[in-house]
């Protein structure tokens, strides 16, 4: 109890990386999300859990700039902000790793890491000439720092394993000084060893000061990685729990409605 108390006190002093206040989303007459208040502090891994249709996806879409909220406000680094498109969120330091990874499989690791942010010798619109040596140096440094094992930066993504692809997608999100990375089911399609590899990457990110918002159905993963858990049910946040003080049973209780 004391531990939780200190944590709460500390969280009031630190400026959250991102904070949502009263976020509500209505599609016509249907309320998909109502009055969602959520806070992510630096270096935190915050998990959001809930059944299908509980409002997690809607919440993630709003935070990543893919959709606008009907009501409520969003603060990034303590400042009010409105996202009109995903690039707005990215400019504010919020990156998203989609469940399908959104990688161009025919292209090599290097091209994927720098997609849309290619380093060029000079800026001449689309005809800017690519500075490959600089990109290769940065890519190797980035992959090494985050701990993503790939055979080489010139290998096509098609030839990589699921874990390596996930690593490339995460490295792409992490490589641009982002403050918060949203990960949608990062290990749903992976085996045991590859899942462990991805967990290692997430911990490395955390130690580098990056916050992670983890959407997951995997309770073991939530318990292992997260610092706090928000439980969504029927478009509402029904519980905010500190992972160290809760249990899988308690979380599942909130998800199913047996509790709260």
């Amino acid at each position, binding site marked *: 109890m004391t531990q939780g108390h200190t944590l709460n006190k500390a969280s009031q002093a630190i400026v959250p990386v991102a904070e949502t206040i009263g976020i509500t989303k209505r599609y016509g007459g249907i309320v998909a999300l109502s009055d969602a208040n959520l806070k992510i502090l630096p270096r935190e891994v915050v998990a959001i859990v809930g059944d299908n249709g509980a409002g997690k996806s809607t919440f993630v879409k709003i935070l990543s700039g893919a959709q606008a909220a009907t009501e409520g406000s969003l603060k990034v680094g303590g400042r009010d902000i409105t996202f009109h498109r995903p690039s707005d969120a990215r400019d504010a330091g919020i990156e998203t790793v989609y469940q*399908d990874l*959104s990688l*161009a499989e*025919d292209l090599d690791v290097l091209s994927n890491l720098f997609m849309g942010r*290619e380093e060029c010798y000079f800026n001449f619109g689309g005809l800017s000439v*690519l500075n490959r040596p600089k990109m290769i140096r940065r*890519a190797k440094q980035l992959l090494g720092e985050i701990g993503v094992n790939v055979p080489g930066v010139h290998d096509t993504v098609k030839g990589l394993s699921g874990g390596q692809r996930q690593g490339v997608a995460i490295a792409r999100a992490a490589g641009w000084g982002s403050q918060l990375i949203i990960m949608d089911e990062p290990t749903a399609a992976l085996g045991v060893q590859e899942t462990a590899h991805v967990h290692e990457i997430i911990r490395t990110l955390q130690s580098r000061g990056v916050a992670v918002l983890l959407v997951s159905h995997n309770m073991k993963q939530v318990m292992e990685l997260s610092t706090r858990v928000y439980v969504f049910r029927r478009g509402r946040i029904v519980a905010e729990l500190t992972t160290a003080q809760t249990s899988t049973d308690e979380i599942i209780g909130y998800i199913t409605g047996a509790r709260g």
Partner: protein
Amino acid sequence: MNAPSVASTHHTPWQGLGTFLLPKNPAAVVQRIMLFLLVTSVIILCIVNPTFRNPSNLLNIVQQASMIGVVACGMQLMIISGGFDLSVGANAAASGCLAAAVSLSFGVPAGIIAALCLGTLIGASNGVMVAKAGINPFVATFGLQAIIIGALQALTQGRPIAPLPKEWRELGFFNIGGLTFSSIVFIAVVTLLTLMLRHTQFGQHIYAVGSNKVGTSRAGVNVDRVLIATYAIGGLTAAIAGVLLTSIAGVGSPQAGTTWALLAIAAVVIGGTPLTGGVGGISSAVIGIFGLTVLSNAMTLYSISAFWQPAFMGASVLLAVGYEALRRTRRA
């Protein structure tokens, strides 16, 4: 915890040669095989057939390959982006005729500029239909092709535009050491598009869009703009070919180009680029167009009926696509 490592790949010259001869990518393997077949058949034909190795015949092959070669280079870009353009032949005919018509009153340079603008505009319209309206490339470009041909026939009454200013013939006969104007333009187009595709941000984005449109858009790339620009360049190359045709034929011909779109697509496919998008290079279009031209030249030299040519071309396309598809399915 394992030490994270990114294997640094040191390429020795021999390894480089090995990767060139035996690439991992099935599509690239098809391209190497086609290049090998092309080079071997040219060497064999040079040895056994004195008419074939005659410099004027070899230059004639380059000349014949040049016009549709320019179209094939543009087609290559559109295929890498995940689409194609069936209207390139109609575009070339319309642009060639416009060049001829405008040159009657305003001179040849004005005619050429007008043609290149029309071609680019037609290409960009295809791009807008594909990117903004989400119309399937087959339907969009097939539809526009029909509109262009209809309008062109109606406006010209199906009659060629002639006689033209004599500058057209001078352009058609211009050559440097036997290398004609068309061949010089073809070499320039190949060089410029290769550099663009390999070394510019736009080139990189064409591959990305062809490989994963949604993912590329999520990464912050303006996918619509990439597609429209790609089809605009495709239209521009068609117009260049139309201008070349007018210079060679000395008339603006509304009947021209009916087979060009399929020839250009065939060249790209024979050169080892699958229609799935995201892979390939200008080298495919070049290998493919020379393969088709050498084949047709050899058939003429050995007095094989020209009626067989489409059959041989079809067989080459099926072999190239079949081999690539087989390798891909075996791997998967």
